[in-house]
């Protein structure tokens, strides 16, 4: 206990003595952590975006114009009987036409050819929403039986899959870039921590030789450098979390414009604070402690 206290004292003395190097070490660790947290935020936003898109997916079943009311009702009841179905909208032939008109209002070509046909060429439509995106396949398969094949003109999935793929492509690129940035910062952090310990050992070479001469336990010679790693790690994680908190507060209004959640980032940060702090502290500590051990092995022969 006494020894631990003295080692903490020694390491603070050393940090003060090499203050600019120590500050630089903390700065680069903070930069590294900021880019890690950017990665976390990108992941979070990606998940949110995809959840949103999935929510908009529906299957539209277009019936033949000739399908009778009984046939339509039977098909509707059949689909309704599936527990996976969350929502079901039935559009009559007239409603379908209206919707079609609304969608192609500005497209003269389509409108004029629709006019030429005179009669309503469209059949009724069934719009199905399921609880899970994976359930769509099941519904589609269930409708692909001879009984219903006859009255169904076509089934569409929408092109949400393409949208999801697009989101993944974009966020994938952002993630790769951030990952690259993180590794870059990690490498720089390694070099800087290594150098900080090297300089500390150099400036303290007389103390170290005296420590050894008078029979200091190895823990007293090496302990302060490991303690410095711990101090740097705690400081950098602390500073990062504070910076992240203010950034999320700043970014939340912009995120809220995209998703209907006013404090998406801040809420996530606050609800995962222990996890985020713990994991990052462990990772940074591992990096700095391993680096200073390496530097000590190289420059500090006990």
């Amino acid at each position, binding site marked *: 206990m006494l020894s631990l206290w003295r080692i903490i004292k020694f390491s603070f003395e050393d940090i003060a003595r090499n203050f600019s190097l120590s500050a630089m070490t903390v700065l680069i660790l903070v930069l590294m952590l900021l880019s890690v947290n950017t990665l976390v935020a990108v992941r979070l936003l990606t998940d949110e975006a995809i959840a949103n898109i999935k929510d908009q997916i529906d299957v539209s079943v277009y019936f033949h114009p000739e399908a009778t009311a009984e046939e339509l009702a039977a098909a509707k009841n059949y689909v309704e009987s599936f527990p996976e179905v969350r929502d079901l909208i039935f559009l009559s032939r007239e409603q379908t036409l209206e919707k079609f008109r609304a969608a192609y209002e500005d497209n003269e070509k389509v409108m004029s050819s629709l006019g030429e046909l005179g009669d309503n060429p469209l059949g009724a439509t069934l719009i199905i929403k399921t609880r899970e995106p994976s359930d769509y396949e099941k519904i589609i398969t269930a409708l692909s039986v001879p009984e219903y094949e006859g009255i169904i003109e076509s089934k569409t999935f929408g092109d949400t899959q393409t949208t999801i793929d697009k989101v993944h492509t974009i966020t994938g690129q952002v993630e790769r870039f951030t990952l690259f940035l993180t590794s870059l910062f990690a490498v720089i952090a390694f070099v800087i921590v290594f150098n900080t310990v090297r300089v500390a050992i150099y400036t303290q070479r007389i103390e170290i030789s005296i420590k050894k001469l008078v*029979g200091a336990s190895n823990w*007293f010679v090496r302990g302060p450098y490991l303690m410095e790693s711990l101090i740097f790690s705690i400081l950098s994680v602390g500073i990062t979390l504070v910076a992240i908190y203010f950034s999320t507060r700043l970014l939340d209004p912009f995120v809220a414009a995209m998703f209907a959640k006013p404090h998406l980032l801040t809420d996530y940060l606050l609800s995962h604070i222990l996890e985020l702090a713990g994991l990052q502290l462990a990772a940074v500590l591992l990096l700095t402690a391993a680096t200073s051990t390496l530097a000590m092995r190289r420059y500090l022969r006990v």
Partner: protein
Amino acid sequence: MVEGDGNLFSMIRLQGVSKQYAENSVGLSNIHLAIEAGEFVSVVGQSGTGKTTLVKLLIAEEQPTSGRIEVGGWDISRLPRRDVPVLRRQIGVIFQDFKLLPKKTVAENIAFALEVAGETRARIRRVIPQVLDIVGIGEKHERYPHQLSGGEQQRVAIARALVHRPKILVADEPTGNLDAINTHEIIEILKKINSFGTTVLLVTHNREIVNHLAKRVITLLNGAVVADEVKGKYRLS
């Protein structure tokens, strides 16, 4: 016992010890020595004959290329690193260049040696005046090294070497930087420490000291022992 040169457990025993630094750099070659508890031994020899090498081997700063070194019956020839601190607390060492921390006071310099050995604050407070008293510098405990004469600085170094009550005190040319009066005072302190029962190994160049001491003298030449006399004189020119 077969050994003819001393008791079963000599305080220091070297058997066929050699230290080769590099291809053509011999530190010591095939040294046999036994120093008993309570002895005061001077080691003399020209520059580069292996005196400091002997000191480094004794405090396990270097390992012998061959041979066996024992301190108090403990074989330290291949001492693992974690055991080095244990040895260093049993052998106090002083050097020509005092090795004091310039930004610490006399008392802090001595406290430092105790702190890094994990001693309690109460014990540190008790030991500092004791060792300062032995070297007679107690009233200057709040001075910084640069406020002391060379002789006083060496006394502080001796006080620091005594904090763990070592069985052996090794002094590698402790008076090399001092004038005649200070040299005399340091030697008197070493004799005093020896009189308490501590084994003293004094490496020196100084003819007057050796002749005045009239104690055992070991003479080294090119890494070998060329003379070992119970009441020796400084024989080299």
